[in-house]
């Protein structure tokens, strides 16, 4: 294994870890806003790390550019979607979970 491949492996592992954290949080958090909190952030970071790792092992420039393009689209589109979801939920008076509410304890 060469140096850049090791870096890629580390980046992919980190990306996996972040993504898994997000997925686990989405499963276990007590209410919508907390789930949003975990899923929204980890998604962007996780995909970015993985794409960065893949760019390092790609030999040809066009593919690298495409990878960066996908990462950028996701970096813009995913937070926009998350923002819109939050706004819609807020406008519909979805109440955040507070300590002591029933059914929320993980």
């Amino acid at each position: 294994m060469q140096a850049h491949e090791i870096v890629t492996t580390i980046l992919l592992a980190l990306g996996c870890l972040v993504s898994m954290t997000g997925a686990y949080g989405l499963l276990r958090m007590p209410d919508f806003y907390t789930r949003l909190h975990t899923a929204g952030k980890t998604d962007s970071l996780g995909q970015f790390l993985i794409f960065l790792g893949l760019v390092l092992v790609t030999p040809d420039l066009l593919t690298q550019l495409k990878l960066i393009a996908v990462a950028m689209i996701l970096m813009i589109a995913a937070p926009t979607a998350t923002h819109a979801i939050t706004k819609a939920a807020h406008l519909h008076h979805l109440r955040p979970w507070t300590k002591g509410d029933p059914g929320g304890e993980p």
Partner: protein
Amino acid sequence: MSWVYLATAVVLLVGMFMILIRAIAGPTVYDRILATNALGTKTIVFVTLLGYISGRTEFIDMAIIYALVSFITTIAILKFAEMGRLD
């Protein structure tokens, strides 16, 4: 090197399974939308990884399509949730 991609892909699949449970169970509509959106992102990463597993980099075109289409779908779902109509 390919086992690294494969391991990443399998871990992502496990993550997708967790998100899928949320998408099916999700008590409110917004939970479901959120889970759908998160699944979309995971799918895009997964497609790219599949390209690297099989050594075909053309798969990235598909990742771009997924990114754009899942964004549009999320907007449509949201608009219906928010306004009750699409146009």
